[in-house]
């Protein structure tokens, strides 16, 4: 099956630092992929390149065969690629409901209905009229997750979705992610919680110093020498 997302030799530099170095990878539709690596390995920068927040200097990014590198972030999003952020970026002075309404182009009634469904999905329905800035960290994380679903993406990039979410909510969140996969959506997750990423992902990519050093199913990544060395150093 043709990949939904294809990265070829993507490179991003910040001054003298090469944050992402000739990274190539492909995501098939309807699967869950993980992206791991030590701090500063270029995971978030790679997400930023895919979503247009950073322009990559070299390489190509294709979504459904169309080149999307060089597009503005809103143009990327409208091609049905959605993302969340490592550091929460909700709109604090909008209510939880408005945070969802603001990102959709559905007619008003349909948008209200969909927004309420999504708030119910992430158990925030009773807080729909609360300003987002007044929600707890975990609730804001869930709100951001619901907001990205409101854009109805085919490819969802989740940057550390489990961070700061309590165990009960986390289990619901993980089940929601699996449900999205069942609906045919492709999920690409950056996560530091190894249990979460190993349980969820069908395939994992590993970055170190901006370079892809390994890719494969979780059981293979778990025992890969290069991955162990990247995380724990050479013994």
């Amino acid at each position, binding site marked *: 099956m043709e990949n939904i997302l294809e990265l070829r030799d993507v490179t991003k530099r910040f001054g003298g630092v090469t944050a992402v170095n000739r990274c190539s990878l492909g995501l098939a539709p309807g699967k869950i992929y993980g992206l791991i690596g030590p701090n500063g390995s270029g995971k978030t920068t790679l997400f930023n390149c895919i979503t247009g927040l950073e322009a990559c200097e070299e390489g190509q990014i294709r979504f459904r065969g169309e080149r999307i590198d060089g597009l503005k972030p809103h143009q990327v999003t409208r091609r049905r690629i*959605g993302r969340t952020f490592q550091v929460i970026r909700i709109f604090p002075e909008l209510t939880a409901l408005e945070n969802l309404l603001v990102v959709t182009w559905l007619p008003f009634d349909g948008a209200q209905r969909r927004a309420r469904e999504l708030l119910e999905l992430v158990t925030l329905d009773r807080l729909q009229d609360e300003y987002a800035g007044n929600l707890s960290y975990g609730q804001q994380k869930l709100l951001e997750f619901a907001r990205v679903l409101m854009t109805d993406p085919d490819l969802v990039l989740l940057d550390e979705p489990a961070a700061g979410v309590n165990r009960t909510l986390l289990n619901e969140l993980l089940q929601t992610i699996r449900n999205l996969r069942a609906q045919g959506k492709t999920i690409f997750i950056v996560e530091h919680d190894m249990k979460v990423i190993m349980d969820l992902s069908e395939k994992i990519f590993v970055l170190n110093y901006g370079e892809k050093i390994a890719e494969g199913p979780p059981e293979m990544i778990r025992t890969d020498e290069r991955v162990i060395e990247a995380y724990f150093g050479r013994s």
Partner: protein
Amino acid sequence: MKWLAWGTVLLVLAVLAIMPFFVSNYIVSFAIQIFMWIALAGSWNLISGLTGYVSFGHVAFFGTGAYTTAILVSKAEWHWLPASLMGSVTAPLLAFIIGYPCLRLKGPYFAIAMLGLNEVLRALVSYFEDFTGGGNGISLPPIAELPPVYYAMGGAALGVVVLTYRIITSRFGLRLISIREDELAAEAMGIDTARLKLYAFLLSAAFPGIVGGFFAWYSSHIEPIGTFPLLTTITMIIMCLFGGKGTVFGPALGAFLLSIFQEMVWARFLFIHQAIFGALIVAVVLLMPKGILGVLQERYRLPRTI
């Protein structure tokens, strides 16, 4: 409760509509000034209160409208009303020319660019003497009666408030607020922030253009220094901040209260009234950055439409 609010609004409008027939010319003139400030502060609110892009050059649109009207009336013999309405074309045109490149600037850079626009316009108006009268300005026939200007300026003030209400209760308004809250996140959620900022900027330039035209007709004479003073922009900012930026009625409330305050202070403390006004600016920024309605909104969970 809603009916009570609407009833109060209609009553106030009815009183304002018949007021010129029962009060002195001084009161009518003062009301004209208050209406002008409501329109100006409300217009500034549309770009700066909603999107967070602070414009320090909004008086440029006011001046553009004033000169458009003065030139059309004195050289082309237009009636003052359509000439003033032409300000809603020329000022947004200028806003488009300056906004398209400058709205890509973030934070203080946009504010400084707008400040520069004001100075450039003042210099240009002074330079093209044959067209604008240069430093001497343009004189217009003195107005015979105040009520037409009163109703025109009142209509502009009402127009800005209604427009603000319509925007804030729409998804366009929510998207403008999302730009203020986190522009990068808004962009990443599919919102074309550059386009929306430009729309807001054009709308925010239209009413100062019209009001500038009314002002030119009302004052019968305009010249560069009096038409493009930085103080006019600062006053609209303070009025908006004092009443509550990003709200519907905040700028109008701020314009009303501070106009009265200014009039009282000016009359009693002729030599230090500007120092007192400056102290008030510092106090507002330090003690009440969200303004009167912003504080009430937060404390009593009032809707965004106040």
